[in-house]
């Protein structure tokens, strides 16, 4: 689907600071169609911020972001602000799933999934309901359509959140530590859904601490520290024989757990 066979997502020299704190110090990254890129790194390394840059939740100060070849933040840092951002283009092509689920607590699972398609895409109610039902079945929640988030487990809530993002027919999915807030026994059901999505060819960028998932599902692993990409490559290479000292230290600490 990427125009002219270029990368699905291209990041060029992305910089971002929060006040005095420089969170991203020049990130370059290409993600091809169907690729699954897993981003690892210690907390504070800027990995979540990078992910949130891709759909402009955190617009970068400097650098360019291309989605399917289209520059989505012309003149970042300029006074143009939202006017220079292709918000509609981005938000309808890039879905995101959050660590804290962020389901709408006053809506049922089904309504969580149908809301955006109906309001944003003007999809007819019948059609959006049918589609939402299919999506919720696909993530294994056919029997929870009319439950409120409060009555669902963390794993179930996160699967609703994935279905909600998929309802907008995104071309790219971003996952921001989506299993970090879950009890250990609920992690697998969410990872299974993500694995299936990857097998179906979804382009994915996954910030995670799940090394097993990165190894098995990832096409590429990126290790970040202090706002820079320290090392990247095939999962087996980065995880099993890292070249950089910082990567080794980090992996050592994670595996010790």
């Amino acid at each position, binding site marked *: 689907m990427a125009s002219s066979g270029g990368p699905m997502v291209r990041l060029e020299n992305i910089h971002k600071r929060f006040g005095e704190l420089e969170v991203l110090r020049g990130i370059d990254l290409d993600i091809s169609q169907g690729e699954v890129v897993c981003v690892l790194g210690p907390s504070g390394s800027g990995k979540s911020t990078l992910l949130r840059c891709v*759909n402009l*939740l955190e617009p970068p100060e400097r650098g360019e972001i291309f989605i399917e070849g289209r520059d989505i933040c012309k003149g970042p840092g300029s*006074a143009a*602000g*939202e006017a220079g951002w292709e918000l*509609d283009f981005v*938000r*309808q092509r890039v*879905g*995101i799933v*959050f660590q*804290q*689920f*962020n*389901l*709408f*607590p*006053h809506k049922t699972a089904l309504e969580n999934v149908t*809301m*955006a398609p109906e*309001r*944003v*895409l003007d999809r007819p109610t019948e059609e959006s309901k049918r589609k939402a039902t299919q999506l919720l079945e696909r993530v294994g929640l056919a029997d929870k359509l009319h439950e409120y*988030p*409060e009555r669902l487990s*963390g794993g179930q*809530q996160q699967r609703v*959140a994935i279905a*909600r*993002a998929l309802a*907008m027919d995104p071309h790219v999915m971003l996952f921001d530590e989506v299993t970090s*807030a879950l009890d250990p026994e609920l992690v697998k059901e969410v990872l299974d859904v993500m694995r299936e999505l990857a097998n179906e060819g979804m382009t994915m960028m996954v910030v995670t601490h799940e090394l097993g998932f990165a190894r098995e599902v990832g096409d590429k692993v990126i290790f970040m520290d202090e706002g820079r990409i320290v090392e990247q490559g095939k999962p087996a290479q980065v995880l099993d024989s890292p070249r950089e000292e910082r990567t080794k230290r980090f992996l050592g600490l994670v595996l010790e757990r």
Partner: protein
Amino acid sequence: MREFISQYFDVGFMVDHFDEVLEGFWLTVQLSIVAGVLSLIWGLILAQLRQLPGRGFLPVRFATIAYIDIFRGVPLLIMILLISGSIPSLQFLPEWLRIPQWFGKPDNFWFGVFAITITYGAYMAEVYRSGIEAVPRGQMEAARSLGMSHRQAMRNVILPQAVRKVFAPLLNDFIALMKDTTLVSAIALSEVALVGRDLQSDTLNSSALTLGAILFLLVTLPLARFVDKLISREQGRFTRGAPRVEAL
């Protein structure tokens, strides 16, 4: 003791003047409902103006904050006197606005409504704001990430949750508003306080005012109990199962 009872609780006096007092109280109720509903709407508009995003809306946000600060600080009685004594002499206004007689209500009824709405709108805007700010940031992020505009996110995601959170405090403000409608007696609207006061000065007996107070309590006490119940229910929701607070 007898003197005390006949001064404040003369039942025969109350029965004799019950119809007048009740009529005054009925006007109080109408004034409360009209001004209350308008305050709720005006407060919600103010709260949303205050939350408009981006640099372009800075002047709007600033003006809204100034409005809220000013009208929370000015006594309602002064607002009532200011409006009722000035609007009729502003010749550039059309007559239907200078001397409003809508729905068969006299102009001082409507001046009271204006003053209360201006003042209580500012109070209620702050209550709504506390509700909007109590909705976790992630809700707005999730809604915007799904392609909703700020406006759509406010309407479909943030406000429904915010209003639920502030329903009890809003009702509290409504009770206060209802009691404050008695200030409109200062501009000769025959609501319950003025009826009672006229009877008091004619007869030197205060029982009509006491009756008015009792009628107030008949409405405000159940409302206050209802508010308490709502608050304890809301707190129950939040203390049961601690992790849910995050998930909300």
